[in-house]
C-alpha cells in the first residue's frame, strides 16, 4: 500500500463506512434486538436499522466529511429515538464538529474524532467505561486507535486495532452489572448478558475497518 492511501481516510472511505454500517446493522437487526430482550426492551436492532436507513436517505453528496458525519448525526437523532438515538447522534455530532469542510482525515484528526465522540457520549449519557454500555466498546477503540497512530501504524492497521479493541470491550460487557440504561434496572440479573449498544458500536467500528481495508486494497 502507498503512503497516501494508508495515511489518510478519504471522503469516499467515510461514505463507504457509513454505507457498510447501514448494511451490517440491517443484517444484525434481529441479533441486536435479541440482545436487547433479556436486559432491555427488545428494540435496539430495530432502532439502529431504522436510523441508518434514514442516514443513507439523507446522506449529502460531495466530499465534505464534516457535513457527512453531521448529517449522520442529525438523521440518527431524528430517527432512532430511545437512548441510542441521542447517544449515537451526539457521538457523531461532537466528533464531526472540528471536521467541517475536510475532505480527508489524518490519523491525528481521526483520533481526535474518536476522542470527541467518546467524550460526547460520556457527557450526554452521564456514563463511563465499565457501566455496561456502548462506551465499553467505543472508549477502548478510541484509545487503541490513538496508540496505534502514535506508534506509527498506518490507517488500516490502526482501524483494525480499534475494531479489535471494540470487540474485546463488547465481550467484556458480558460479566458486567449494568449501571446505565434500561439494563441497570435488572441489578445483578443484568450480569451474563452482552450489551446491545456495545455490540452495535463494535459493528460500526468493524465496518469502518473493513471499509478502509477494502478501499486500500
Amino acid at each position, binding site marked *: 500500500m502507498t503512503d497516501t492511501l494508508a495515511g489518510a481516510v478519504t471522503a469516499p472511505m467515510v461514505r463507504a463506512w457509513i454505507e457498510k454500517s447501514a448494511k451490517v446493522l440491517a443484517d444484525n437487526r434481529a441479533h441486536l*434486538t435479541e440482545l436487547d*430482550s*433479556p*436486559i*432491555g*426492551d*427488545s*428494540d435496539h436492532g*430495530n*432502532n439502529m436499522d*431504522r436510523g441508518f436507513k434514514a442516514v443513507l436517505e439523507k446522506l449529502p453528496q460531495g466530499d465534505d466529511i464534516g457535513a457527512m458525519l453531521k448529517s449522520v448525526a442529525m438523521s440518527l*437523532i*431524528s*430517527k*432512532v*429515538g*430511545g*437512548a*441510542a*438515538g*441521542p*447517544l449515537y*447522534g451526539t457521538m457523531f455530532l461532537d466528533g464531526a464538529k472540528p471536521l467541517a469542510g475536510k475532505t480527508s482525515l489524518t490519523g491525528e484528526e481521526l483520533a481526535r474524532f474518536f476522542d470527541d465522540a467518546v467524550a460526547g457520549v460520556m457527557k*450526554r*449519557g452521564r456514563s463511563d467505561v465499565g457501566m455496561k454500555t456502548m462506551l465499553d466498546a467505543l472508549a477502548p477503540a478510541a484509545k487503541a486507535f490513538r496508540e496505534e497512530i502514535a506508534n506509527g501504524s498506518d490507517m488500516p492497521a490502526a482501524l483494525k486495532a480499534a475494531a479489535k479493541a471494540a470487540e474485546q470491550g463488547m465481550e467484556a460487557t458480558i460479566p458486567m*452489572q*449494568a*449501571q*446505565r*440504561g*434500561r439494563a*441497570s*434496572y*435488572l*441489578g445483578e*440479573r443484568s450480569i451474563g448478558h452482552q450489551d446491545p449498544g456495545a455490540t452495535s458500536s463494535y459493528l460500526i467500528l468493524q465496518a469502518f475497518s473493513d471499509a478502509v481495508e477494502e478501499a486500500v486494497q
Partner: protein
Amino acid sequence: MKKLVNNAEDVTVEQLKGFGLACEDIDVHFDPNYVCVAGGVQDRVALVSGGGSGHEPLHGGYVGTGMLDAACPGQVFTSPTPDQMFEAGKAVNGGRGILQIVKNYTGDVLNFQMAADMLRDEGIEVRNVIIDDDVALKDSLYTAGRRGLGTTVIAEKVCGAAAREGYDLDRLAALCKKVNIHGKSMGMALTSCTTPQNGTPSFELPDDEMEIGIGIHGEPGIMRSKIKSADEVTEILTDRILDDEAYTRNLSEWDPAKGDWVDVEVTDITLQKGDEVIAIVNGMGGTPLSELYTVYAKLADLTARRGVKIVRNLVGNYITSLEMAGVSITLVKTDEEILRLYDAPVKTPALRWGM
C-alpha cells in the same frame, strides 16, 4: 403474533390516524408525529409530554382541555425523537413557555433535553420536569434511577389544570416537581408482551411465574417469583410503596441563570399516618377490569390499616404495556393544591369529568 395491525413496521401511524378521526378536539400531525389540542394555546404555559407508543392511553389520551396540550408518541416502547417535541412545542406555544413532563428513561430524558435545547434556540422558554416514581428501584447512583410510572398521569392532570389557572412556567415546574416527589408507584407482570415489530414476547415468563417491579416497556422487573394470589401481590406492591424511605437523587433540570443543564438534589416524601392520597390501580393493558377491583379492595384495606386515606381513585388502564397482564399501584400524597387541581374539570379521551 395476534394483533390488530396492518403494517407492523410502523403501527404508530395507523393508530394515530384512527385516534385523530375519533377525537374531534385533537389534531394529529405526521412526520414528525405528534398530537395536540385543536385551536392551539393562548397566553398561558403549554404542557407537552410524550414517550414510546404502546402505553395508551398515555400520553395522547390525556391531550385536551385541562390536561396536556400536546403529546409525542415514539415508536413502540422507544422514546420519541427531538424533532417531534420541537414541532409539537412550536405548535402549542402560547407565548408563556412550555413545560415538558418527562418519564425517567434514559431515552426520554435525552430526547426531551435535545428538544428543549432546540426550542430554546427558537426563543421559547422550556422546562423539563422528570417523573421518577418507581419504588421498585432503590438506588440512583448505580442505575439509571427510578422510572416514571403512574404519577405521570397525576402530574399531567394537576399541571394541566394549573396551566389553565394561569400558573407561570416556574410555578408550574415547581408544582410538577412537587407532584413527582409526592408520588410512588410499583408494578408487576403476569405475562410478557409482544411489540408488533418483533412479533415475539419481550421476555419469557413461565406459566407459573410472575415478574415483580417491572417498568412499562416489556422489560423484565427486579425479581421473579411463583405466582401469588391477588392479595399477596397487592401486599408486596403496597408495602413497598408505604415503607419506601426518603429517596434522594440528582435530577437534571435547566438552569436559566447558568444557561445549562444542572443536577439538582431532590428527596421524596415518605407516606405517613394521616396522609391523604390519590390511588391508581392500573392495568397493564391485558388485565380484566374486574381483577383490578380485587386489587383495589386489598389496597384500600392495607392503606386504611396504616392510617393512609385514599381520597380519590382511578381503577383501569391508564399507563399500559401493550397487552401485558399485570398491575401497577400508584399513591400520590395530596395537599390542598394538588387535590383542588386534580378535581378541576378535564376533558380528554381517557380522563374526563366536570365537563
